[in-house]
């Protein structure tokens, strides 16, 4: 039975935050955000929320932001862009939050960024990998996540190193997965890969057998699924059921979630993009992982770290300007060049993230191991993937 700790957890966090804010004097600084507590992105988004919550706890223990306690206000956007927009309007105009941070997924962030821009509220988007969002000339929005284009570089490098030639790509028909697909398509040739299949599926689709029957015919060396958790799981599982035997499987986001392991032995050998790993030597990372584990009883994933880091950046900007003036904070963030638990934060003139990098993990024996790049890896990548008939 999955740990039903959300209720007591929410209460516990709320109590902690109130206790923490009781320690620090002054009226609280409100940080508003929406979280995908339900819907397609729930599995990933909850890690992100915990990242925010851990940071708020810690900052209150340190005396708050500019001496004032911090409180996180969040609502469920149901993995839906429309709901997210309404919630941010509510946060800004009704709840009158002082600061905002981004929601989960490029799709929701994209819609919400317009709200932030309209109300001239600075927003770091830690869960928006689609760089196009930040190329619209907006002044108050900054990318707090590695660009989509860098997600699959590891998988492509390994493919090239092993001499693989053909690749099939599937993507959910929303902003981020399509961004990854188009970026990969641009550079595939440099890695010696020919894309033989490149199709999207609607959000919420669960039966991929027809698409995979097509893929099977093409017999590609590499199968790339630009997918979140439920679809990523479904694709890999159905690859096995339909007898698709690729030498390398990679899933953009889904494989980084611990829940991907619910597939059992089927999950092994699958690669996943991750921008961060628990043992990475980024600044303050070890302490972050330890504190997270103590508070939530499980390891953080890269969403937790990205969200935590975005609040680190926000704190730095606010502290530097000494105020909650959105214009000043925006100016500060655009010039920032700082180390966070997630890596090196730096945005270009448009707001696109150019500091964060990407790495690759692989499921081996029921565990996730970072296998690329060499500088941060914990284990060696196992390739090629044995055919399904020879596996457990």
């Amino acid at each position: 039975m999955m740990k039903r700790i959300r209720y007591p957890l929410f209460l516990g966090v709320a109590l902690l935050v109130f206790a923490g804010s009781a320690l620090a004097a002054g009226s609280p600084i409100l940080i508003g955000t929406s979280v995908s507590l339900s819907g397609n992105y729930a599995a990933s988004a909850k890690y992100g929320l915990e990242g925010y919550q851990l940071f708020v706890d810690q900052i209150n223990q340190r005396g708050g932001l500019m001496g004032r306690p911090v409180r996180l206000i969040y609502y469920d956007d149901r993995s839906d862009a429309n709901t997210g927009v309404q919630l941010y309007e509510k946060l800004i105009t009704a709840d009158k939050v002082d600061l905002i941070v981004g929601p989960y997924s490029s799709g929701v962030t994209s819609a919400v960024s317009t709200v932030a821009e309209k109300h001239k509220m600075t927003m770091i988007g830690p869960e928006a990998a689609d760089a196009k969002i930040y190329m619209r000339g907006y002044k108050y929005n900054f990318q707090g996540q590695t660009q989509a284009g860098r997600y699959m570089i590891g998988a492509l490098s390994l493919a090239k190193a092993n001499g693989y030639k053909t690749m099939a790509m599937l993507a959910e028909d929303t902003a981020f997965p399509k961004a990854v697909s188009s970026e990969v398509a641009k550079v595939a040739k440099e890695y010696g890969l020919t894309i033989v299949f490149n199709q999207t599926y609607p959000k919420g689709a669960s039966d991929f057998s027809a698409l995979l029957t097509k893929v099977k015919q093409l017999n590609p060396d590499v199968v790339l699924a630009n997918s979140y958790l439920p679809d990523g799981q479904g694709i890999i599982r159905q690859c096995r059921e339909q007898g698709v035997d690729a030498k390398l499987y990679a899933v953009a986001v889904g494989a980084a979630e611990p829940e991907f392991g619910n597939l059992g032995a089927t999950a092994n050998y699958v690669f996943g993009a991750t921008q961060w790993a628990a043992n990475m030597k980024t600044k303050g990372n070890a302490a972050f992982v330890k504190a997270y584990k103590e508070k939530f009883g499980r390891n953080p994933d890269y969403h937790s770290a990205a969200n935590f880091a975005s609040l680190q950046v926000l704190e730095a900007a606010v502290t530097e300007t000494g105020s909650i003036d959105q214009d000043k904070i925006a100016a500060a963030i655009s010039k920032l060049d700082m180390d966070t638990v997630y890596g090196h934060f730096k945005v270009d003139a448009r707001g696109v993230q150019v500091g964060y990098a990407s790495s690759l993990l692989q499921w081996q024996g029921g565990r996730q191991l970072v296998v690329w790049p060499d500088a941060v890896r914990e284990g060696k990548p196992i390739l090629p993937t044995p055919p399904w008939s020879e596996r457990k």
Partner: protein
Amino acid sequence: MDFNIFLQLVINGLLVGGVYGLMSLGINLVWGVMGVINLAHGDLIMAAGFLVFSLFSRWHMNPMLLLPVGMAMTFLVGMLSQRFLLGRLPQDRGAIKTSLLMTFGISYVVINTAQLLWGNEFQTVTFFSGSWSLGELEFAKARTVAFLAASAITAALWLFLHGTRYGRAIRAVSQNRDGAAVCGVDQGRVQVASFGLGAGLAGAAGVLLVMIFAISPAMGSGYTIRSFAVTVIGGLGSFPGALLGAMILGLAEVFTGYMVSAQIANGVAFILFLVVLLLFPQGLSGVFRR
């Protein structure tokens, strides 16, 4: 198209069709017997799936052994809904409207309860992995088991409806309510049993579905609409029609997904639904009846 590919697509379509058939039978029973459109159908499917998922997480037993548990739960929910809620509505001209809306209210309650009990995320039961191979053809294990189970349940249902007194009473009411009453059939009891049975079938479908796909509490309404599409395609009130409609839909989805795109495949259920609705109001089985 390569013949092997064609066969593979047919197999995939039929296997999925088996579960669709089960979903449709539940709707058929309730709609045919009582004229009630149960909008909570998909959410019952989902709830049974989640119940089995949570039991499976704890005990790791064969989900097929948990099938009766899922069915029993939804059967109970269905019976109670009919007895205490739907049965209380006035049976006048507007009854269809009000009962439909009430099932909608019930669906909301079911969804929220499932969310509170089991969370909001997508879950699946991975017990049957991979497939059985027959030459070049792959029979996905989970789907094949589900198809066999669905067939067994369908056969059992048919025997129940045609072989037992109770089953015949249900059929009598669906054919002619007043005539059945004259023959001494207790309306209220039959309605409670029918709604319960319809819900129980939904539960069975849910248990089978969670073995194949990932489900989440929000997905219920999608299954409801799909179940209705199958029922209409096959023809309301027709047992073989429901199965026929299910198979046709399963095949249509797979072939469209292969030949056109996944987006269109997602919507082909509704295109067929509208086409059949407008051209063959009796459903495809009605075409054959003539």
